[in-house]
């Protein structure tokens, strides 16, 4: 039901030409479409509790939306706002922060994101390189972030910083800041995948107050880790959708395309590749649906809550490979046209790689699982 509605709307607003328009812009999405999402569909409020004006639905419903957005390659600040910003607020925000920001997000007047990765290519606690120092009642933030989704356009940014000299999971704090806070410099980082924009952000003596701090100073790794894990599930959901769509595009194209006197889809080699693609798409979904149940319980309590780390890594490690393999096979099975800018396959191929890299690739997540299993 929610899926059908989403599909109908996305088929309308996320056509190939709409995607390409959004890709070509620095902002990376069309404001008008985002506003339609916020006002007509109210998707940005999907899992925000009703007390803040949200729909109060669960992660399971959110994941269905994400899967469809991945399928339709929707260019929007949905992921950054909902799966990074909103999750961060829900997991780590103070009552006042939730009240203020979640309400604004529900109203469609605020987009948000999370900045935690420096330039060392890591995705764990060591990714946090920016620092915080105390200056009387104030805090001074300094440092540089890269790969921040929609970082140049978001209205609210959750920054992860660490106490100077701290390492690993120690000394990490989160701050929720208006993106226009003095000292926050943002620039678009043009990327190979143009369907989701990334930014570099530098903090230069950014002076903030305790009201901006989320939770306790220096103790925020458990919260940040949970936010990252929730976002990981969200990326996996998009990947599962992409894995399905690349399959659908391929089946459709090979049914039409005639070579050597018959539809390409009739060649057993093509059928078997398509079968493997379907396997990957279905398995990806199974992983994501379960992870969604776990994420739901991690947010709202339940016996599966402590499985979040594992379920997120299971889903991301499988879906990263599954989507990339499907997108790669899709290009191959499209033959020459899969290689052209005109056809959409390459958009998925690029998105598959960027989402594989984002929040850690399959090998990274397998090692996390190995630590759970073996250490």
């Amino acid at each position, binding site marked *: 039901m929610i899926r059908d509605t989403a599909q109908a709307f996305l088929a309308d607003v996320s056509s190939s030409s709409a995607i390409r328009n959004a890709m070509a812009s620095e902002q990376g999405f069309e404001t008008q479409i985002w506003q339609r999402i916020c006002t007509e569909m109210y998707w940005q409020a999907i899992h925000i509790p009703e007390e803040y004006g949200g729909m109060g639905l669960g992660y*399971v419903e959110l994941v269905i939306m994400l899967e469809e957005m991945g399928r339709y390659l929707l260019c929007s600040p949905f992921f950054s706002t909902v799966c990074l910003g909103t999750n961060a607020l829900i997991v780590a925000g103070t009552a006042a922060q939730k009240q203020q920001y979640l309400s604004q997000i529900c109203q469609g007047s605020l987009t948000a994101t999370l900045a935690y990765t420096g330039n060392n290519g890591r995705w764990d606690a060591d990714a946090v390189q920016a620092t915080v120092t105390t200056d009387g009642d104030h805090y001074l933030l300094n440092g540089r972030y890269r790969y921040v989704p929609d970082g140049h356009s978001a209205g609210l940014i959750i920054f992860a910083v660490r106490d100077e000299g701290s390492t690993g999971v120690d000394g990490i704090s989160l701050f929720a800041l208006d993106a226009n806070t003095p000292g926050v410099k943002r620039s678009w980082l043009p990327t190979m995948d143009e369907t989701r924009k990334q930014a570099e952000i530098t903090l230069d003596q950014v002076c903030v107050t305790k009201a901006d701090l989320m939770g306790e100073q220096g103790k925020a790794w458990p919260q940040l880790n949970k936010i990252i894990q929730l976002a990981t599930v969200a990326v996996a959901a998009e990947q599962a959708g992409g894995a399905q769509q690349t*399959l659908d595009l391929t*089946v459709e194209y*090979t*049914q039409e395309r005639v070579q050597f006197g*018959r*539809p390409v*889809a*009739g060649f*057993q080699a*093509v*059928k*078997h590749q*398509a*079968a*493997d693609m*379907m*396997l990957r798409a*279905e*398995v990806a*979904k*199974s*992983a994501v*649906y*379960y992870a969604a*149940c776990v994420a739901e319980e991690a947010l709202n309590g339940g016996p599966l809550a402590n499985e979040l780390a*594992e379920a997120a*890594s*299971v889903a991301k*490690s*499988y879906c990263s490979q599954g989507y990339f393999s499907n997108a790669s096979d899709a290009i191959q099975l499209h033959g020459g046209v899969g290689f052209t800018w005109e056809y959409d396959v390459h958009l998925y191929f690029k998105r598959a790689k960027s989402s594989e890299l984002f929040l850690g690739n399959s*090998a990274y997540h*397998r*090692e996390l*699982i*190995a630590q759970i*299993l*073996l250490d």
Partner: protein
Amino acid sequence: MKISFSPEDEKFRAEVAQWLTQNLVGEFEQLKFRGGPGDEHMFPQARKKWEQKLAQDGWTCIGWPKEYGGRGCSIEQQVIFNEEYARAGAPGHVGHIGEGLAGPTLIAFGSEAQKQKYLPGIVAGTELWCQGYSEPGAGSDLANVKTKAYFDEAKGKWIISGQKVWTSLAHESDYIFVIARTNPDSIAHKGLGFFLMKMDQPGIEVRGIKQLTGTSEFNEVFFDQAECDADDIVGKPGEGWAIAMGLLGFERGVSTLGQQMQFHNELNQVIAIAKANGNDKDPIIRQRIAEAHVRLKIMRYNSMRMLSDEGDGGLKKEALIYKLYWSTWHRDLGELAMDVMGPEAEILASAPYNLTRLQAMYLFVRSDTIYGGTNEIQRNIIAERGLGMPKEPKIQMN
């Protein structure tokens, strides 16, 4: 997809676990973790006794309706039973063909008389079944069945002649269900019948097939004018294909979760070896163990999807891919086991050719990607039924 276990379910889980703890002891202790695929030939008599022990306390056919002797357990309870059963290391069900295939087929397609005649023996664990599907020249190609059946009016019986192959437990079984061609002029999947036959008769001979493991779990079954009572055809002559197809659906049921728990046990063995020989510190082995774990976890989630949601009867996509997925996983696990053991992987338990459990698993899994439809045939099925791609063309040989 959410499978939630209610407090009642959890109580049921405790009951199952307790029963197993109390009963999988004494003479049954030796059966722990035995008799699964690749090990089916082991301890058949003791496992039959175990089956009857289960039956005594109502732990066979728990998913069957109560009217046929089952417990009428919910899907969730069946999942729980299978999980606990495998977790406890309880032995491979010697009655699984009867419970999982023959019985459900009879419940769905059998006459009342057939139900009365056969179901109680299955439930009681006293009568074992095997299946007569594959044939030497036909492989997984049911349409190529050459075993013939004709009705002998004088005797009032069906007379069956032909050969089946890859039949597990044929030596131990009391009955076999057989697909045979009732119309000699029919081709492909038309004109087949589905027969229930007594194994102990002059017209049936069983020969073990020596496998690459050096053991014989699979058999050839030869039918030479073997007899089948007139009442023991399921459905009508010509309906064999439809019944066989229905039966294929039963193969993908809740038992998959029990199978997965066995896989889990095997993976745990591999992990234990890695920890013992230090290969758990090898980054490449770590990746592979993690990958095996990831895919096994998802196998479970996939089964939960198969079992939940709309039970619209049609084979869902996640069910279509299941055989290809698990057989590939299991094959990979075999290779991982060897590589974790390193050179020690080669050393047998003893001469002349007694394999260790993991060696037997490693070799036996090679059948997983072949029997019940090879991976290649699975891919055809997925593409054709799951994706609507063109069927394989019929080629005329020159």
